[in-house]
């Protein structure tokens, strides 16, 4: 049942994503790309748990690398997106 529930979440999110993304205008697609990119770094959650509580050294090391990578993705993505959008909104009025 959990699998089906997860599947339900997946389907609903896909609909939400489709409806919203198709509404975003072309000129915002580059910042969207890096923003979406940052969101995909949400795997950071998994990495955090594994890195912080891995019971073996190997798991901890893998988790560490995963956290570093995911954090780069998240922090970098949001910042790049922010810098780009800032320029839009200054001019967008």
């Amino acid at each position, binding site marked *: 049942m*959990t699998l089906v529930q*997860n599947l339900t979440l997946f389907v609903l*999110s896909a609909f*939400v*994503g489709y409806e*919203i993304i*198709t*509404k*975003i*205008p072309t*000129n*915002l697609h*580059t*910042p*969207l*790309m890096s923003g*979406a*990119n*940052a*969101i*995909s*770094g*949400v*795997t*950071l*959650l*998994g*990495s*955090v*748990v*594994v890195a*912080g*509580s*891995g019971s073996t050294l*190997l*798991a*901890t090391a*893998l988790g560490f*690398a*995963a*956290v*570093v990578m*995911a*954090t*780069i*993705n*998240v*922090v*970098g*993505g*949001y*910042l*790049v997106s922010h810098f780009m*959008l*800032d320029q*839009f*909104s*200054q*001019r*967008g009025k």
Partner: protein
Amino acid sequence: MAGVIGGLPDAVLQFAYLIAGILFIQGLRDMTHPRTATRGNGISSLGMFVAVAVTVLWFEILSPLVLAAALLVGGGIGAWLAVRVETTEMPQLVGLFNGFGGGASALVAGAELVDLTASGGGLPVGVTVTAAIAGLIGSVTFWGSLVAAGKLHGLVGDSPVSTNAGHGIKVVTLLLALAGGGTLVVQPGLVGGGLAEIVPSYWVLVVAASVLGVFLVVPIGGADMPVVIALLNSYSGLAAATTGFVLDNTVLIVAGTLVGASGLILTVIMCESMNRSLVNVLFGGLGSDEESEDMADIYEGNISETSAEEVEMLLDVADRVVIVPGYGMAVAQAQHAVAELVELLEEDGVDVEFGIHPVAGRMPGHMNALLAEADVPYDKMRELEEVNPTFSQTDVVIVTGANDVVNPMANTDDSSPIAGMPVLNVGEARSVIVNKRSLSPGFSGIPNPLFAQDNTSMFFGDAKASMQELVNVYKESR
């Protein structure tokens, strides 16, 4: 399983994840308008903060120092990269970040398997299946993105491996990866005890998928990299969603799926605006060589050159000017010079607008981002449909660093690789000035009859240098 606030019921954690999911969705909804987009990005990052903070506080962190170190290192590198990047390097940076996201997914799935095996807890089918998927997608994304970013940055050459050998490698590595994944899934049921010995099958999968990722992207033309990156972005989202299935985590599923949808839609939009199929982009390649001989025919004796002084004289008597930027403006970083020119013209009462083609440059919205950086007002940038009907009433069109997006062959020659792609009909204007460094073709590798048209003059030179020169000449003559 009990961190700082871990004593509270599980529902609290789930609820916080739900809030984070809502923030992600609301953040994306705000991206539908430039006015609210910055706020949307902020909301989305707040969602990420909530999700991470709750996770850190909730779970028992055995080694908080390791975790803190990893967060600091990653955050530092990410911020440093984001701050020092140039706008032209954006595509490859996004590609790089994207790869890291995918890599993290693959590593986490691996670490989870190692952990479960070590604790002797057994590997349920649900976990192995989804771990295999996350490992496959994550590894392909990581290496594919690295190659794509390397190509965009000029670090990896465009020259493909022999096509047949390439296809062979792809098939072999894919089969190997699938075999690794299959072993991972099937083994726990067949062999009772030795769980430890089946984990390596995951790493077989990862290695095979990594090689696959490299060979998938290497043969694709450098200019198609944005499509590849958008697609890989979609993959890394799907990898995150899959990890959510492994870890039974709501916010991973929701956020991952949103990214998956976003990447897929961007990919489709880019392919459609180039009038090519995704399969053609990924496995086709453009027939750029065969066409080169036509060029001489088309251009022979029909090219007129012009200079900054002559262009200045045209501008002096113009009432309406349209500027069409392209990839070359991005390469030359000419946007500030262009913006300055526009300002001067406007001061003198000339009506100036930008004609922005949806696939001008190398990313969707590339030109808009560049011009916004140079403080060009949002309402001066006109889309293809808006600006096309106005060219017949336009005195001067300045094309700077664009080529394919103003190529009339898209309308006239059905066999051309850009056939059917809507283009900016700049030829209808009274005079067309084309600024580029040579007569060499653009992304699609085909000649451009526009350059040979009677009302077209070529203004050769690097976009930044030429535009700056034009600005100087214009200033002097006032």
